[in-house]
């Protein structure tokens, strides 16, 4: 009887973690689409996506707290609990970074010239890919620790690509003909978007170590 309850609780927790990872993945996709909307002048769609990201972030927080609570109360996965909760917390930083990035766009309404749109979109795209590979890596960690490295190296790849685009963007911005405040303002948004890929890479480093520790 107790064993059946244990398996039932396990199933519920599994689905909660899956849902949390789904939210993280959606946030990455929404970040890209929201920036596309902003850069295309579709303000209403941008704000709608920004609110979606904010809701997903709140719900993800609730899920994470519930998972943490259950893992401690039921003393589940004692050997891996610290790693799992650490990974989920750091993933929350990725979601937060995306949310903050969009909030900055919404509040500060940067003026992005047409010649920089493609680079911004490319940067957002690489950030999203890094998030998608990270989520796949975390799912792999929960099932087969050996395939985690397949995804982790891709996260690092997209993060490097994002860094390259970010640097290129900043050089172009500071080479433009506008005042310093304008250049600094525009380049800060490069940092916001690039920050998502950076956070994703931080999580992937922790994921690598956790996967090594997980071997029986």
């Amino acid at each position, binding site marked *: 009887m107790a*064993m059946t309850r*244990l*398996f039932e609780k*396990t199933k519920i*927790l*599994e689905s909660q*973690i899956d849902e949390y990872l789904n939210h993280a993945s959606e946030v990455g996709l929404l970040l890209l689409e929201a920036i596309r909307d902003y850069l295309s002048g579709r303000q209403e769609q941008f704000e709608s996506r920004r609110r979606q990201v904010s809701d997903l972030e709140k719900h993800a927080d609730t899920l994470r707290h519930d998972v943490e609570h259950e893992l401690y109360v039921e*003393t*589940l*996965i*004692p*050997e*891996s609990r610290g790693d*799992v909760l650490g990974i989920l917390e750091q993933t929350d930083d990725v979601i937060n970074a995306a949310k903050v990035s969009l909030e900055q766009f919404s509040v500060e309404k940067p003026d992005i010239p047409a010649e920089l749109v493609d680079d911004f979109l490319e940067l957002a795209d690489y950030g999203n890919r890094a998030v998608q590979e990270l989520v796949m890596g975390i799912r792999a*960690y*929960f*099932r*087969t620790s*050996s395939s985690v490295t397949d995804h982790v190296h891709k996260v690092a790849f997209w993060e490097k690509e994002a860094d390259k685009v970010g640097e290129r963007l900043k050089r172009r911005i500071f080479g433009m003909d506008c005042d310093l405040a304008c250049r600094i303002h525009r380049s800060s948004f490069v940092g916001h978007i690039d920050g998502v890929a950076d956070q994703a890479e931080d999580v992937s480093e922790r994921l690598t170590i956790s996967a090594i520790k*997980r071997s*029986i």
Partner: protein
Amino acid sequence: MGLLLLSSAVLLGWSLGANDAANIFGTAVATRMVRFRTAAIYCGVFVVLGAVISGAGTTKTLGELGAVNALGGSFMVALAAALAVMWMTRAGLPVSVTQAIVGAILGWNVFTGSRTDITALTEIVSSWVICPILAGVFAAAFYLIARKVIEVRPIHLLELDAATRTGLIIAGAFGAYSLGANNIANVMGAFVPAFPARAFELGPVFSLSMKQLLFMLGGFAIAAGAFFHSHRVMMTVGRGLFRLTPVTALVVVLSEAIVLFLFASQSLEGWLASRGLPTIPLVPVSSSQAVIGAIVGIAIVKGGRGVRYAILGKVAAGWAATPLMAALITFVGLFFLQNVFGMMVARPQPYVITEPVLERLSEEGVASMELEGLKGTRYPDAWAFTRALEQRADLDRDQMNTVLEFAERDSFYVDPRLIPSLDRSVLSEEQLRGVESLSYRAFSHEWQFLERLASSSPKWKTEIGKRPEADEPFAVRHVLDTFRVDLSESARGSTRK
């Protein structure tokens, strides 16, 4: 008085529970996969079940090593083993209760001049080598299987955790059952020959023999030791000595449980024997040795890293020192018990070659002219008789054992006044009539009594025919105990024991 003397067995059982429960549930509790209370309850219940249901096999082997036939002797054997265990534990050396009790029984044999069955001793000592090796082989195999399964069929971390927890509880319960079945002989084995065979009714359909009752008491002592005293040891074994993941902990517990069960299962022994396959001897083995063997087996599969050979060396030293220490304490303790407190530590067991013995030996193929020269001489114990045989006759080991078996002097008188006191729940009407047909008859050897009994009725013939492969049938033991006459009283002409 008997109950007071059982206190040493209770102490030994408590020590066994406190130490060995940790081998079963230690890692599960220390890694918080299973709560201590849950572990202790499962351990207690299944230890008692294992002891009562399956404890007879290993007890028989221990009894063959040395039949401690007086309560005083049983008390000292159990006490010496318990003291040796406690002494070695305080010295920081890992200890095996099995080895302590074997050493103590050998000490009793030496003190009383009783025969040590070399076959039984060889079986027991060889099991000390086979047990860890077998556990290592099982553990390595299970580990490789587990690793392959997890590789091939990706299982969610949480599902694996739940399955491991469930596995640890099931394996732990099996391990506790095997511990009770295999090790109850250590706790109560020395007392079984010293208590008379009787049956106890528990309600209209359920009865327990004296042996099962003793095993139940021993099982409760082990369970109590596990419940009240094993928590600290569990945490030490689980964390301090070896670092195992929950899955490897499950592999270790399962391997240990299987090995202990293999060395205790009479049904498996019977199955193997019926197919002409080599059997596994039914001997008490050390759960600590099995656990260490299993862990080393896994370490070897993983490449041999992480094995702390210094600790292994210390463990081996402990295993060697424990039986020696127990034997020494027994010897000294028996001396004091007998000579200072005047307690009987052994029933006299003389040997004499008579004409019927010579005829019987001839039927067994042991015909020796030199034995004629020993006819009529009474030897006080197995030592003296064996020395005389070695000096006068050229016999191999098997022949020597046969001579010892048939020359063992005992005294039985079928007093018809004792027949009404026989337990009718154990003996059939046919068997009772068989006993009655031997009224007023006296026998100097157990084999004579049993042969006459076997010829008195087909039921007795079947019952007696089961010896010595099976554990001694209760009915046979009951009749022997009822009509046995104390040899010292017999010498004075008394017919009642």
